[in-house]
């Protein structure tokens, strides 16, 4: 036992994946205690929502999880639809599933890529980001924006698919699994990456459940829980897909199942494109100014980070009385002090990366 040192990491540090400050107590190079200090990106989105009409809140939800904006759009719209009793046309549901599975690929590419960068394999980041760029371009063709889409709206989606978009998605989905196999060999077959990831930051399954983690963080520990299958919403029951599970709950499993989830997403997109029928993309007869009856509603979806829920309270006015976001990134980040204990400072960076936090959603 040597004298303990306190090291501040962040709030501006490339390995914190955003603006998080981590106060690390070190014994030599070994982490004794790691305390994340959040709130550097607290923009008060939940409070702002109280001063916006129901439709005006949608652009704010874009900026929650900015790596996967479609999820927050969808989770919010589902809560509004439940609150106001809106029925969504079937084509809109299919389009939502397609864009959200594409978003999962885009988001996981960022997560896997940064795992590569954290372990010294920057090339893998380049390969992953090339795939992400394809998806971002598809979204740009769809709604005109590369990151903040504002596409999923209460009652449907903002506009129908542009001409030739389905074919572009098909050709992307056709090449994606092979690219994932290449990335798997490149990153997870690499001796250095395996040595850096295996056995680091082990999260036991019962702890994962107790701390409310979800998504790839929980599934990496073998927790068999995916809202798309276990609390089916939208048209997900019509698709045939697997939920990849990890065994050891270490950084390797958490990072690698993201890769398999991308392959499963491709399967879902393929099936959804096959079943896609022409029709309206927005519920008819919606008033311009939604004013649901007094009451509350909660709905959740499986985002790239886990269970993303939105709770809305209405007092009968055209503005939400209260909006609360159940953020998976926040819950996943909460296990960081447990995981980091006893590992070296360099492993701490890998552990943060494997949790894949997005601070827009953590701080809200």
């Amino acid at each position: 036992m040597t004298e303990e040192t306190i090291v501040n990491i962040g709030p501006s540090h490339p390995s914190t994946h955003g603006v998080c400050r981590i106060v690390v107590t070190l014994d030599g190079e070994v982490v004794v205690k790691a305390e994340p200090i959040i709130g550097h990106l607290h923009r008060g989105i939940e409070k702002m929502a109280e001063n916006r009409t129901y439709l005006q809140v949608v652009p704010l939800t874009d900026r929650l999880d900015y790596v996967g904006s479609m999820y927050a759009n969808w989770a919010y719209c589902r809560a509004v639809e439940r609150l106001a009793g809106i029925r969504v046309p079937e084509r809109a549901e299919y389009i939502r599933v397609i864009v959200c599975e594409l978003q999962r690929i885009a988001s996981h590419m960022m997560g896997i890529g940064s795992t590569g960068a954290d372990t010294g394999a920057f090339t893998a980041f380049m390969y992953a980001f090339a795939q992400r760029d394809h998806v971002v371009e598809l979204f740009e063709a769809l709604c005109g924006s590369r990151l903040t889409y504002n596409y999923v709206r209460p009652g449907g989606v903002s506009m129908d698919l542009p001409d030739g978009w389905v074919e572009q998605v098909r050709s992307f989905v056709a090449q994606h699994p092979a690219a994932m196999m290449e990335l798997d060999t490149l990153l997870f077959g690499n001796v250095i990456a395996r040595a850096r990831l295996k056995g680091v930051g082990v999260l036991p399954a019962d702890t994962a459940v107790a701390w409310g983690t979800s998504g790839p963080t929980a599934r990496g520990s073998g927790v068999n829980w995916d809202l798309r299958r276990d609390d089916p919403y939208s048209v997900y029951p019509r698709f045939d897909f697997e939920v990849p599970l990890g065994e050891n709950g270490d950084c390797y499993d958490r990072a690698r199942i993201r890769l398999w989830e991308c392959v499963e997403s491709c399967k879902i997109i393929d099936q959804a494109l096959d079943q896609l029928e022409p029709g309206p993309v927005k519920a008819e007869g919606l008033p311009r100014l939604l004013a649901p009856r007094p009451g509350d509603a909660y709905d959740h979806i499986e985002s790239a980070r886990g269970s993303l829920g939105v709770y809305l309270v209405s007092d009968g006015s055209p503005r939400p009385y209260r909006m609360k976001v159940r953020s998976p990134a926040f819950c996943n980040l909460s296990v960081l002090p447990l995981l980091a204990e006893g590992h070296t400072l360099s492993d701490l960076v890998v552990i943060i990366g494997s949790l894949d936090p997005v601070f827009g959603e953590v701080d809200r």
Partner: protein
Amino acid sequence: MAFVDDLGAALDKTPGGGIILTSLDAVMDWSRGKSLWMMPMGTACCAMELIAASFSRFDFDRHGSIPRPDPRHCDVMVVAGTITRKMAPAVKRLYDQMPDPKWVIAMGNCAVSGGIFYYDTYSVIRGVDEFLPVDVYIAGCPPRPESLQDAILRLREQVSTDSIAPGKSRALKSELPSSGSPRKGERDAAGGDVG
């Protein structure tokens, strides 16, 4: 900057030194403009576009703009994303750690003016120019990587007309009476809670 300062004093004594000074300016401007290393102050959504800009598709390395996480390596700070009251002291501190000459690019509406978070929120600084001297503003929420590319090229134009003579340089920000405009934001940034 002691070297440049001494040089300026020496050249003033030289008869006809203006010609030499002009050509030295050209050399300095040329070398500074061609390797504007970026300090990526990415906090929110715009940071994703900043990352995309330096990756293989847009490849900013070919402009000599390499992102460096250490402020002491950098020439230009790219403020990409929302700056909150809690974050502002850290941004200011990192800016102060950058060596002269230095420039600031405000990328995206949040850094320009607060953007979508201008109204109804209590925690967001309404534009990074409340506490930093901004050279180039990029509009967009978020701006495309091409916009950032344009900003770098415009900044290069600005750098290429600068002078190294004492008192004439626009880039030597620490010689200014105060960094940035003495507006409300500066007081907030200085007195903000670092958490």
